[in-house]
C-alpha cells in the first residue's frame, strides 16, 4: 500500500515542489529589483526624484535585493524546505 501511495503521489509532490520553487523565484525577482534600482538612479539623475525620495527608495531596494540574493542562494543550494 505504501509503495502504491509513493507511486501514485510522488510525481504530484515533485510537481508541487517545482511550482513552489518557481513561485519563490518570482516573488524574489532579483532581476526586476536590479532593474528598479537602475530606474531609481536614472530618475534621480534626470531630476524627477528628489534626493530624499531617491535615497529612501535606494535603501529599501538594497534590502530587498539582499533578501532576494539570499533566497536564490538557498534555492540553488537545495536547502530550502518546502512545507505543506
Amino acid at each position, binding site marked *: 500500500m505504501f509503495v502504491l501511495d509513493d507511486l501514485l503521489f510522488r510525481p504530484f509532490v515533485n510537481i508541487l515542489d517545482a511550482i513552489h520553487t518557481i513561485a519563490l523565484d518570482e516573488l524574489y525577482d532579483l532581476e526586476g529589483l536590479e532593474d528598479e534600482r537602475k*530606474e531609481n*538612479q536614472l530618475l534621480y539623475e534626470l531630476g524627477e526624484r528628489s534626493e530624499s525620495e531617491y535615497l529612501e527608495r535606494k535603501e529599501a531596494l538594497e534590502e530587498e535585493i539582499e533578501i532576494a540574493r539570499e533566497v536564490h542562494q538557498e534555492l540553488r543550494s537545495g536547502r530550502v524546505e518546502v512545507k505543506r
Partner: protein
Amino acid sequence: MTNRYVYGIVESGADLEFETDAVGGANEVYTVSHRRYQAVVSDIDTTDPEETDEDAKRHDEVLREIMERTNGHSIIPMQFGMAFESNRALKNVIRGARPAFRRAIRDIEGRIELGLKLVTEEDADVDREAIEETVADALESLAAQSVENDHFSDRLVLNRSYLVEEDERETFDDAVAELEDHPDLEDVMVQYTGPFAPYSFVDVKIGAQR
C-alpha cells in the same frame, strides 16, 4: 592587500601612476607590465569584489581619469570585478590574451563611447518607433558603431551607446543638442553621457584564468 584589481589594459608608454579613490578603498593606481601591454591596477583585499554602487562608480571614475592621462593611448576597459591574486597571475593572463588585446585596440583606437538614454515623462504616451527612427537618422551616420543596451525600465524609449571618433565628438554633441529640440522628443527626457572608455565595444574577458 596583495591582490590586483584591474581597470583596463593600455599599450606600454603611458605614464599611469597616480593617487585617487580606487575600488575597495585603495588610494593608488599604477601599472603592471608584460611586454608591450600594461594592466592598470590598484591593490585590493579580495579576488571577488562585490559590486556596490560606490565601487562601481569608482571603477568608472578611475577609467575616466586614466583616459585623461593616457595621452592618445587607447585603453581597453575591463568590466567591474576583474581581480587577480598576484602580479604573476595577472601577467600570465595578459600573455594569453595578447591577440585579443591587439584586436580590441585596433577597433577602439582614437574613439570614445557616448551614451544616450531617452525616458518618457511620467504617464506620457509617445510614438516609440518614430522616436527611434528620428534618433537613428540623426546619429547613426556619425558613429563608427552603436549598440542597444539593457531596457531596465518601461519608461526607457532608447538606451544606446555610440562609438565615436574623438575628432567627431563636437559634431555628435551638436546632433544630440538638435535632437533635444525635435518635436518627436517633446515628451521625452534626454540623458546624454560620456565620454567613457568604450566598454560596450570590446569583448575581452580576462577573469577566467584567475
